[in-house]
């Protein structure tokens, strides 16, 4: 059976893509991009969180105690990846907001369809 987190992750991703294709407001497009990214982050995190022999894994802090008790840890790599990806996402978000503010100054509108002066 497919774990519920995976279904949720893909739902989020497709929700984001739908919003990205159908919305016209720049702020909503930025939100759509963030929803897509959130879906991918959820997917990555849940990849590391697997039930082993029906035991819930603990946080990936290695103290030596875990091996004694026999409880598994969640995979630390996906968490590192998501952390990196969140930082990148924040950079993109900040730049997108800055560009949106500038676009509003030049065009007086946040509608993506109004940004149509470049053609040829």
């Amino acid at each position: 059976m497919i774990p519920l987190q995976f279904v949720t992750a893909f739902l989020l991703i497709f929700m984001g893509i739908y919003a990205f294709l159908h919305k016209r407001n720049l702020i909503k497009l930025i939100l759509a991009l963030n929803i897509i990214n959130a879906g991918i982050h959820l997917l990555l995190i849940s990849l590391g969180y697997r039930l082993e022999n029906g035991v819930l894994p603990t946080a990936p802090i290695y103290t030596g105690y875990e091996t004694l008790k026999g409880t598994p840890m969640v995979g630390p790599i996906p968490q590192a990846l998501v952390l990196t990806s969140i930082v990148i996402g924040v950079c993109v978000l900040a730049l997108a907001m800055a560009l949106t503010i500038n676009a509003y100054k030049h065009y007086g509108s946040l509608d993506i369809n109004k940004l149509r002066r470049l053609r040829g």
Partner: protein
Amino acid sequence: MNLLPFLIIVPLFGAFSMPLISFLGKRVRDMWAVVISAVTLGIAINVFYTIWKTNQIIVYTLGDTTPLGKGVSFPIRIVWEVDLLGALIAVTIAFVSLLAIIYSLEYMKHDTGLDKYYTLILILELGMLGIVITGDMFNFYVFLEIMSIASYALVAFRNDTWEGIEAGIKYMFVGSLASSFILLGVALLYGQYGTLTMAYLSQYITREPTFVSKVALAFILCGLLFKSGAVPVHMWLADAHPAAPSSISAMLSGLVIKAGGVYAIARILFSVYSISLNIRTLGWIIIFFACLTLIVGNAMAVVQTDMKRLFAFSSVGQIGYILLGIGIGLAAYGTDVGHVALAGAIYHTVNHAIMKALLFLVAGAVLHEVGTKNLNELSGLARRMPLTSFAFLVGAAAIVGMPPLNGFASKWLIYESSALYNPFLAAIAILGTAFCTAAYIRVLFTFFGKESEKVKVAKDPGKVMIVPMVLLIIAIIIMGLLPWQINDSIMLPTARMLEESGEYVLAVLGG
């Protein structure tokens, strides 16, 4: 000593020390940018020469001497892995970036916030260098995003004009969606195989190519085709490349769509997925997009009235040739035809970087001196700007594929291999070149036509802008005079090294 890590360290240090250095004055800041990029070029040439001489892949592990973990036989660290292809593209990147930085010393003189400009341009360079030297999927994604964010910011650098902002926003939204697709592909691969090292991943995929790995490939390819500007999704390129400052256009068109697009496609298809999938079908998918890109890109270039936009569409068309070479190289894997096609694609990648950089620098010089890039207002430029017009003549002849210049050899390899593989593809390729010729002849007639009002006071730009153009012309002519020697000694070994994915795996995992 292994100089490879300094390929990243030097531009990174240069970029983030730039705001401090700029307190010392404008002249010091300019010199610092040039020195840093020159040192990077030196390191890139050294790395390339080492690999070319020994014919061995360089592997560098971050934080350790061996990629393998202690007591286990699989890699657990981030690995940088450079073969000839990576090193060759790295040299091209460092060379064109150095010239773009020298050019912008004069071109950007009247702009403000130049310390941020040089910081961003060095970050762009470092992102591209990172992409070509990395051997780890997630590290690849991180460098791709470093490159992309720097290029979004640089396209919108002149934020007092609507042009830059609009192009920046379009580029940013499309590019971020593409990056998300790539991240999704990387996440799926990690979920399926539990590793991110390309070499180790390749071993797994060859052993059991599952459905998930194919879906991941579809997402990654989709994202990379977005980034390289292949045809159904090329519209952002035609907006973003002309709107950027010309030195940046030269880097975007010459380098970014290659390092972050074509190079990455070749690396993922040949080294990571190697020959585990149905390579014939995969090759034909790439060929399909290539033919579409080739025709549409070159045909759209003919009808443009804006010079930089024409060059941008021509870039789309040339990406088509490179993709055609890669596609045939994949579909005819293991035969001589495929080998030659791949060598042609690699050769054309390097050639196009040099030619298109030259053309955009010419467009920048015209824009700087005359103040317009509309072709209808620029007729008769040749008498007033002789050096610039000569540079344009060389660049245009090279990109069309005239025999004594470098474009001829690479295009010939692609025509030859496509004719041998399937004559229909060769017909399409030649049709594309016909459109390309028409577009450039049109610009040529504009340059040498009757003198218009606007160009009466124009003159050649200053020395600092001429020098990079002259260096690019020299590179074009030298590469044009020795086409087959370069092909035999560099391009064919590079193609062979890319094709033999087994060596790529062995270099990390050991005998």
